């Protein structure tokens, strides 16, 4: 196969997107075009799977050449993205019906897919940065068209991702200058001196794109404002894919990342903190979609923790968790979408008793919720075990944090399931099951969760482990987790979560109050209240800082204006007036000046 084919994954979605922008909004034309593009992308991704290919074209001089490289890891990301693209595309046809600015939505959707393919395939760092920035713009676009006052959260997302991308740019510039070349395969820098700074900057960029702690605050807001398929497609799946793909490329290829270095502990700390804080916030949410978005943030913590350990088990666990998370999170969001479409609201207090009216959505929810909580037969359980194995190897404190995280995850999902589906129905109107085109993606994703769980050698052996290649040191993590101790601990934690849920329900009488006893616990109540008021949100702090800066700048500007308009003019006028006064018209005075001048010159000459 000629190398040009590498261009197709990028070109097809983007061209389709441009066409979608201008196509007439006749019934179904846009949807058809999108599905066509997405299926073509899926076919090409399948064809390209596990191939070795390089495509090179001079682009902008100065060493930025348009070079794409297909190898195992990028083909895996390509395939996953194509899969999600196809499923969410199918889902959004039904879901987005009747909503406004549809051609904008579909074109941004396709551009996102194209740029993710581009970022995955990019061989040149600057080219990767180009696609990375493209994603930022489209992210803003997609949130913006959510509904009419989605503007603030779109700006918030844009600013936060923008800041992170600037760090990324800085990192790439540093790496480029240190390594002398911008080609990812040629860069292999030891971690000392400036390289550390470069690593940190790039790590910030990658983790921010994946949505980890310091750069996470836009996701919950976007969850409420943005169109739901966007949430299912970008924050849940693609961003994680691209972010973690680049994070693993940094740690595995670009830098000699060793478990001993303090950077790996730094990564693990970020991961652990993200897990705990995000899941604690998730627990107290009363909105279906916000709860899921906080979980998306906390699950990223597991991936970063896994990769941060630097141990083969941890890395394999992290990457495996990445794909698993993408699947069940996307499925959960889709169930959220169907609930929103059918029941009209996503507020847990108003929902209830949907199990009987929406059986298929309910079953998909059960499968996805179980896999995210790490219940044994499903895929979440196996990837979490690998992450626990890696974390325990590096330090029990990280393992304890991860375990507490999964306890709270399980508790919150029990609360969600009980409140949304099992409580007695509070709403009056009759709720029907979601249309078929929304159900199919959910069912496929649920089936995949089960498949990757039960028969996990399939994903591990031919998808994830080839990525590490020689770094595996001969382990094969496929099959049932090796250390029994971890399995027992997980089961104990799940049991505790169930008991905690039962206690909460008995105490408050209804499903949605299951976490109240934690929410209003003496110590936590103040912190939770402050968190609700966004006190800890870095974005708000930044905005206040900017306010002071602009006031100071305006003051300086006024001072400079004063100097030019008032000061310079006044002095010139007064000096001019003084000089004109000096000429008082009498020739005697002029003569005296001349004599004075004469004596000065004579004295000057004879002295020097």
């Amino acid at each position, binding site marked *: 196969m000629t190398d040009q084919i590498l261009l197709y994954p990028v070109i097809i979605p983007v061209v389709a997107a441009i066409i979608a922008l201008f196509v007439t909004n006749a019934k179904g034309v846009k949807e058809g075009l999108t599905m066509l593009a997405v299926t073509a992308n899926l076919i090409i991704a399948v064809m390209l799977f596990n191939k070795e290919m390089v495509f090179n074209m001079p682009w902008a001089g100065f060493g930025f050449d348009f070079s794409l490289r297909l190898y195992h890891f990028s083909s895996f990301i390509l395939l996953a993205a194509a899969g999600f693209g196809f499923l969410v595309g199918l889902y959004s046809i039904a879901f987005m019906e009747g909503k406004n600015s549809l051609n904008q939505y579909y074109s941004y959707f396709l551009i996102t897919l194209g740029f993710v393919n581009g970022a995955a395939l990019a061989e040149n760092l600057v080219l990767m940065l180009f696609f990375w920035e493209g994603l930022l713009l489209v992210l803003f676009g997609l949130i913006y068209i959510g509904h009419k006052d989605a503007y603030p959260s779109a700006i918030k997302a844009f600013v936060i991702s923008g800041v992170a991308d600037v760090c990324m740019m800085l990192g790439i510039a540093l790496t480029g200058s240190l390594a002398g070349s911008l080609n990812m395969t040629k860069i292999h820098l030891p971690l000392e001196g400036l390289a550390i700074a470069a690593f940190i900057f790039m790590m910030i960029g990658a983790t921010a794109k994946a949505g980890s702690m310091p750069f996470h605050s836009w996701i919950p807001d976007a969850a409420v404002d943005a169109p739901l398929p966007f949430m299912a497609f970008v924050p849940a799946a693609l961003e994680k894919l691209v972010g973690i793909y680049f994070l693993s490329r940094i740690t595995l290829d670009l830098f000699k990342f060793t478990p001993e270095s303090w950077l790996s502990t730094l990564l693990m700390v970020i991961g652990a903190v993200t897990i705990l804080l995000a899941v604690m916030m998730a627990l107290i949410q009363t909105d279906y979609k916000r709860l899921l978005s906080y979980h998306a943030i906390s699950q990223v913590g597991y991936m970063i923790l896994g990769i941060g350990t630097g141990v083969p088990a941890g890395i394999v666990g992290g990457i495996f968790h990445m794909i698993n998370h993408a699947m069940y999170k996307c499925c959960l969001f889709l169930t959220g979408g169907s609930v929103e479409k059918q029941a009209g609201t996503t507020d847990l207090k108003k929902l209830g008793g949907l199990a009987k009216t929406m059986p298929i959505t309910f079953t998909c929810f059960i499968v996805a919720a179980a896999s995210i909580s790490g219940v044994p037969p499903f895929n979440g359980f196996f990837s979490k075990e690998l992450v626990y194995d890696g974390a325990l190897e590096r330090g029990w404190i990280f393992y304890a944090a991860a375990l507490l995280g999964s306890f709270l995850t399980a508790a919150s999902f029990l609360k969600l399931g009980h409140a949304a589906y099992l409580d007695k129905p509070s709403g009056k109107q009759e709720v029907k099951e979601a249309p078929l085109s929304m159900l199919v993606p959910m069912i496929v994703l649920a089936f995949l969760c089960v498949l990757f769980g039960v028969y996990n050698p399939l994903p591990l052996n031919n998808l994830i482990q080839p990525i590490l290649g020689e770094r595996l040191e001969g382990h094969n993590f496929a099959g049932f987790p090796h250390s029994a101790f971890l399995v027992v601990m997980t089961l104990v934690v799940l049991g505790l979560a169930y008991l905690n849920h039962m206690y909460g329900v008995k105490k408050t009488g209804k499903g949605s109050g299951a976490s109240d006893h934690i929410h209003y616990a003496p110590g936590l109540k103040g912190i939770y209240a402050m968190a609700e008021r966004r006190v800890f949100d870095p974005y708000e702090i930044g905005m206040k800082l900017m306010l002071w800066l602009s006031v100071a700048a305006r003051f300086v500007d006024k001072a400079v204006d004063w100097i030019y308009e008032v000061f310079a003019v006044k002095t*010139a006028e007064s000096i*001019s*007036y003084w000089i*004109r006064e000096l*000429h008082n018209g009498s*020739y005697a005075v*002029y*003569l005296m000046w001349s004599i004075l001048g004469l004596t000065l010159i004579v004295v000057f000459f*004879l002295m020097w």
Partner: protein
Amino acid sequence: MTTLLILVPLIGLILVNLPFKNARRTTFWYAVMLSLMQAYIVLTSDKIIWEGHFDPIEEYFKFNLKADNLTLVMLLSIGIVAFCALMVAKHMIKDEGDLANFSNLIIIILAGMNGVVMTTDVFTLYIFLEITAVTSFIMIAFFRDKDALEGSFKYIVLSAVATVLLLASIALVFMVSGGTSFEAINRAVHANNENLILTAALALFTAGLLIKGGLVPFHGWLPDAYSSAPAPASVILAGIVTKTTGIYSLIRIVNNVFGFSGSIKNILLFVGIITIFVGALAALGQKDFKRMLAYSSISQVGYIVISLGTGTELGLIGAMFHLFNHSIFKAQLFVNSAAVEKQAGTRDLDKMGGFSKKMPFTGLTSLIACLSTAGIPPLAGFWSKLIIIVALWNSGHPVFAGAAVLASVITLGYFLVLQRKAFFGKLAEGYEQLCEAEFGLILPAIILTLITVAVGLLFPLLSNNTLIPMSHIF
């Protein structure tokens, strides 16, 4: 035969004023012919005139006149400015007899300046300076109105003092060198350098010439003389007389005769920078059109002197080029002021306004002259100021270079004030029926503008065949 440039005007003067029937009416045309011939001769550097030898004249009049490049430039500008002054005179002086007198005076001052420019003897220089001075006294006081008489008297007093200083210095030099010709003095200077008498002589000479050139501590007479003089007189005065008597002789004396010593450079730099700033700042607040132009010419002469003060070859080129440029656009500004004065009848800037609507040519030409004086790129003024500032920078006076640039900003300032008050804005009331000056008045302005623009645009190729050779007078 350089002497022709002096003899022909002299003989012509006698012939034209003979008591024939209408001999006096031809004076004006004779003067015009003279100035044009002079400009033509210099431009074409006609072989016959320069190298030709007429035995009869040669045998009787053995003058040792020398004409190098600096003289050529001066002769050219004298010719051009004299022609413009005559054109303005034709239209400003209505009476037949007065016009004849004025043309005679212009012929004399033309001959006088030619003498100053071509002489090689210090005392002859003094005599021709006196000729030019006396003629300009008479021209200023030509119409004998109150202001003109006052301006003329002030010029007489200060010029007389300057002359006495020159004479004293000539006496000292005569004592040391025995002769008064430049070479004799040069030999004496080289023979016993660091002699106190010679430094005293140089000091007195510089002071005298600075008074005549109108630089700041000595400039008292200049604004009054220029602003009160009748229009044609102020054109030729501001255009070329002050620069020939003051600056040219300064260059010739300091450069060829006494040679550059450390102290003369410092004096020239110091006087130059003060002149630039005082001239510019004084011009900023002026109410009278011509008085502002007078102060602006003081400031521009300061540029010439500061460039001379660097003492380097580039500085000299810059000085000479700016001298030529300045005489062109200053003469043109005075021609414009003459046109405005004739049409609008007033010189007070506050009463004027929006004249360029009614007098488009005058407005446009004065705008170009203003921009050129301020040194705006495409025009000639920019190139000469550029050379000056580069010369200052190279000769190790960055502070002066910076100050010179700042001053040209002030220059642009007061010229834009002039343009806005006189030509732009809405038409001042009472001038509705204002109309453009006759063709005679616009012609000199257009010629001078064309010269400024041509020199500005053609500067690159102009520079190597005229400016560089000009520096070989060292």
